[in-house]
C-alpha cells in the first residue's frame, strides 16, 4: 500500500522520429542536385576503356544537347553471330546491326537526322556542332567506329566524342 506509483517496468523510451523525414529529404535533395538522370538504359553490354585528360561533355549544359550511341555486345551472347564482328549498335534502345549488317544501311545517319529535328528550338547549334557521343566497349573493333564516323560525315554531323571513363573520376 505505497503512496508512490510504481515506475514503468522496462521498455526503452520511444525515440522521437519527427526529424527523420527532414534527414531523408536532405539526402534526397543531395542526390537530385549531384546527379544526372539516365537518358536510356542501353540495350547492349559495354565496358568503357579508361583515359585521362578528357573533356567533360556536360559541365554546364544539359545532357539532351548531346546524342548518345552505344556500341557493345548483345545481351544474349547467342545473338552475337548475327552482327558484324559480333558487336551491335544501340540507338535509342533499338538494337541495330552495324553499318552493313542485317538492317538497312545509314541507320546512324537517319537516327542522327531524326534526333536533330527533334531538338527544342532553343538549341540553335547547327548540325555540324551537335556532339554525337560514341560509347563503345573497350574491345569494339575500330572498323565499326569508322563506319559510324563515315555515316556521320555523310550527313555533315561533324563533331564526334569518343567516350572513356576518366581515370581520376573512378
Amino acid at each position: 500500500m505505497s503512496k508512490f506509483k510504481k515506475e514503468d517496468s522496462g521498455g526503452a523510451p520511444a525515440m522521437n522520429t519527427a526529424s527523420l523525414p527532414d534527414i531523408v529529404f536532405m539526402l534526397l535533395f543531395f542526390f537530385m542536385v549531384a546527379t544526372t538522370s539516365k537518358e536510356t538504359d542501353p540495350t547492349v553490354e559495354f565496358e568503357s576503356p579508361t583515359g585521362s585528360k578528357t573533356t567533360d561533355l556536360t559541365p554546364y549544359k544539359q545532357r539532351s544537347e548531346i546524342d548518345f550511341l552505344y556500341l557493345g555486345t548483345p545481351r544474349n551472347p547467342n545473338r552475337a553471330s548475327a552482327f558484324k564482328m559480333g558487336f551491335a549498335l544501340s540507338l535509342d534502345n533499338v538494337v541495330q546491326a552495324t553499318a552493313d549488317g542485317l538492317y538497312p544501311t545509314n541507320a546512324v545517319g537517319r537516327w542522327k537526322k531524326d534526333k536533330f529535328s527533334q531538338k527544342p528550338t532553343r538549341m540553335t547549334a547547327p548540325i555540324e556542332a551537335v556532339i554525337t557521343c560514341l560509347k563503345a566497349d573497350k574491345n569494339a573493333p575500330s572498323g565499326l567506329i569508322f563506319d559510324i564516323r563515315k555515316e556521320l560525315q555523310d550527313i555533315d554531323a561533324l563533331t564526334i566524342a569518343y567516350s572513356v571513363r576518366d581515370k581520376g573520376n573512378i
Partner: protein
Amino acid sequence: MAKRDIPEINAGSMADIAFLLLLFFLVTTTIDKDQAYIRKIPKKIDLPPLDNKVQERDILALKANNQNQLMVRDNIFSDPDKISDFILKFYQTNEKNNDAVNNFPMYSKTTISLCDQNMSLLEQQVEEADRQGAIEQAKFFQNSYDEWNKKKRAIKLYGKSEIRELSVQAHIRIEVQQGTAYSIFTQIHNEIEEAIFELRDKECNRLFSEQYSILKRRTAQDSDPKDKDKIALLEILYPARIIEVTPKN
C-alpha cells in the same frame, strides 16, 4: 465555449514517402560524368584531292594493327605510355632553332605585318567573291580572314612582334586497322591529349602564370573575351592537328 482542437495530422509515414522518393532517384540516376575526347570530322567535299606532297618530317604517324600492337613512325612501341613523350619531341625539337638534319617539323616566324598583309588581301577576295555571287567562296575567304585576325590578336597578346609557329602541314596521323580494339584507339587519343595539355600548360604558366586546366574550366563556364584570346594563343602555339585515317578493308 471551449475552443475545439484541430486534429493533428499523423506525420509518421512522411519518412516512408521521402525514402520512396530517395530510392527512385538513386535508381534512375548516374553519378559518373560523361567524359570523352571531342574530335572534328572533316567535311565531305566532292573535289578531287589536291596533289601536294607533305614532307615526311611533318607527319607523325601513330599506327595500331589488328593484334593491338603500336607503331610510332615505323618503330614498334611496346609501352604505350611513352607515345606522349615522342609527341612532345615532335613539337619541341625545332621549337627554338630549326635544324634541317633531324626529321621533325620546322617552325616559321609569323609577324603582325604578315597578318595585316594577308588580311587586306583576303578582304579584297571576299569583296570580289561577293560581287560574283560565289557564296561558298566568300565564306571560305571570310573564314581565313577571321583566322588571320585571330593570329594577329594572339601575337599582340604574346607581347612580341612575331611568333614562332609550327609548320602548317605538321600533323598527327592515327592509322588503325579494322580489328584494332577501341581501347587502343582511345589510348592513342589519350597520349596526344596528354602531350598537348603538357605543352599548353607549361606555356600558360609561363605567360599568364595560371594553370591551363583552370583557364579552360573558366571559359566553359562563362566566356570572357580575354580568356578566349588566351586560349586562342595557346592553340596557335601548339595546334592539335589530328587526322584519323579510315582503315582499309
